[in-house]
């Protein structure tokens, strides 16, 4: 490979890290935002429920962390953090990009839907504060798929060999 196309490997890899962080982060931001609106409504009526609804609001926040996780592993993999960039050919770079996509895309979508589920679960807490344990479970169900995506992203990124 010659010219600019041959040197784009590192760019693809970084794009992967960026996609993991910004997509999953955006998903979490949307989710936490949705849940936060519901939480504020509950606290306005009953300030005693603050701790419980805060936990509920935080539940969709994990996707952003998973994205950060994959982004960080990718950055350390390509040597951006150590200061010495690894030589990455376009094929490896694109592989890293592909490896980052699951957590990015699933993080975005599941973050949003987990937020909506959290908002509904906050409704349970508002009406029946003693059912907190069950209410917490519904948003956790959505998160399962983010965890599965995270798993595949981590496994693929850490198993791609970089010279």
């Amino acid at each position, binding site marked *: 490979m010659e010219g600019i196309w041959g040197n784009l490997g590192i760019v693809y890899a970084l794009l992967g890290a960026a996609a993991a962080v910004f997509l999953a982060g955006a998903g979490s931001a949307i989710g936490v935002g949705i849940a936060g609106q519901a939480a504020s409504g509950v606290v306005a009526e009953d300030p005693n429920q603050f701790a419980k609804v805060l*936990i509920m609001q*935080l*539940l969709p*926040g*994990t996707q952003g*962390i*998973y994205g*950060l*996780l994959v982004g*960080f*592993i990718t950055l350390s993999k390509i040597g951006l*953090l150590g200061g010495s960039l690894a030589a990455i050919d376009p094929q490896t770079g694109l592989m890293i990009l592909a490896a980052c996509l699951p957590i990015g895309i699933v993080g975005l979508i599941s973050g949003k839907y987990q937020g909506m589920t959290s908002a509904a679960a906050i409704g349970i807490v508002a009406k029946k504060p*003693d*059912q*907190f*344990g*069950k209410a*917490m*479970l519904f948003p*956790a*169900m959505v*998160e*399962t798929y983010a*965890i*599965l995506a*995270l*798993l595949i992203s*981590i*496994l693929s990124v*850490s*198993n791609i060999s970089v010279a």
Partner: protein
Amino acid sequence: MAVLQMQRISICALKTERKAILEKIQSLGVMEINHVLDEDQDFQKMDTASQRSSFEKAANTADQALAILQEYVPVKQSMLSSLAGKDLVEQKKFRESVSRKEETLKNAKQLVRLNKSIAEKKANILKLENDQEALTPWLPLDIPMNYSGTTHTAMLLGTMPGAMTLEDIYGAIAENAPDAAGTDVQIITAEQDTTYLTVICHRKDETAVEDALRSKGFAKPTQVTHHVPSRKKELLEGKIKQLNTEITDIESQIKGLDSKRADLKLMSDYYRIRADKYQVLGDIPQSQRTFLISGYVPGNAVELMKKEIGERFDCVIDMEEVKEEEDMPILLKNNKFSESVDGVLASYGLPQRHEFDPTTIMSFFYVFFFGMMLSDAAYGAIIAIACFIVLKKFPRMEKGMSKMIRMFMFCGISTVCWGILFGGYFGDVITVVAKTFFDTDIVVPALWFVPLNNPMKLLVYSLAFGVIHLFVGLGIKGYSLIKQKKYLDAVCDVGLWFLFLLGLLVMLIPSDLFASIAQVKIVFPAAVTAFGKYGTIAGALGLLLMSGRSSKNPGLRLALGAYDLYNITGWLSDVLSYSRLLALGLATGVIASVVNQMGSMAGKGVFGALMFALIFLVGHALNMAINILGAYVHTNRLQYVEFFGKFYEGGGRAFEPFKENTKYVDIKEEH
């Protein structure tokens, strides 16, 4: 370990002793009142609603009075004070305080009254201030506002909309009342949208001039005073001042009642206890001279009841087993370690009467999985120590809360163990600090292995732990079925599944797929391999034939069997769900190293060290908080969905004994 067996206790005693007996039962707090006898000619219930509501009202008044005291004489409460629990009060002190209850109630009413009068006075002040506001534009006027004029002249006083000039007003008068001569207009205050003015005219022209002005929007003020406005203002100010002094006075009266706080609390609880007692009293059937009370008592409290009630009072106590069709309340008995997680179980649902109590088994898995997901020795130590201190500092903490904190303490200890196994101490802080500040390379070795270096290995272990957890769940189902003597169900619904799943596992482990994941090739002896093959086939066939055994139709039976066999996908997803053990464990470690790396970016030196300390504190606090939350939520999920899904139904009703349900204090038992 188990659901406590309840006994139905029935006590029949003399009516003259009913209150003493009820009080004793209430202070023992081991009996749930539940009546089976309906009213008839001889036994009738008593109406206690009016007494009850008067007691509840008294308790409420005391609560209100306490809230008022808290408003005017706030007692500082630290963040942790909600953990402190209720104070313990000696019987003697309680009785002493209760003997003053009339006076205390008077004080409580006094407090409520004082508070009301402050509120009224404040509303009054607000009104006076509004009056003052309305008066402000008239202040330059030096005659009383209701001055109507002399014998020959009339004075009109009012407002006109908009900013009017003298010319405008004179023009309006000249236009609409041309006959009125010698009219004098004075603008008192001109604002942007209102003009305040007085007009003096001949008394005979008064109507004409007023009509002329009205046509331009002239209006008389709603409130006129017979004082000169500035004088009126002084009067209003005087009144406000007066009210404020009165408020201060009342406030000091309220503060003077602060010493009654303890009495108010005790009185509130006293009336609360009495209200409960009267509710029960209203429920028990009474004949002319006797009464009958019946309910559930846990088996281990039967002797206590016999001793405390039977020996002290003239009564007949009858014990019997709880009948099968009765809705027996559930009370669990577990050891100190396992009972710490029973809040988790209760929030899913207590076991039913004959169901297996999974608390003990769950407690081990709970602590194990929590530690694995958090997996940082330093975080674990912080949690364990913090929980330990809180438990020691507040021995009288509310029971549910203290159990939960104990649970987190055990989880913290487990986290320390996993952290040591995986080599995580605030992530890799030792390595980073050594490198940044001392230029040396120190790597704290993991006792087992570092998950980030070998995620596949941890994945396999996570799934293996999952399989064990699920098999234990299925095993419990088998155990319960055998205990209920449903042997065929135990073999078909549990035994066949075990055969099928174990066979599949034995076939999977030597396969290339497994080898590529685990990076080890495992070869079983031929006999085991053969067991795998035939076990799987036998299990699958058995399930196909037996799962639909409730159906007589052979075609439908096979179809149901095939559908049950399809549940293998459920097993697959359940096992895969345990991969969160790996994912959450990695998340803690990696974010901790991100924090450390960020901290080290400022480099060496004092500034670098300061930056590091700051980032370290904030970053790790955040990481810890979010990962504790994650570990808690997902450990719960693994128990509720995967584990309980295999065998547990729940839906039992919690045991609610008739006891002294106090709000502020606990009353010490007398021995």
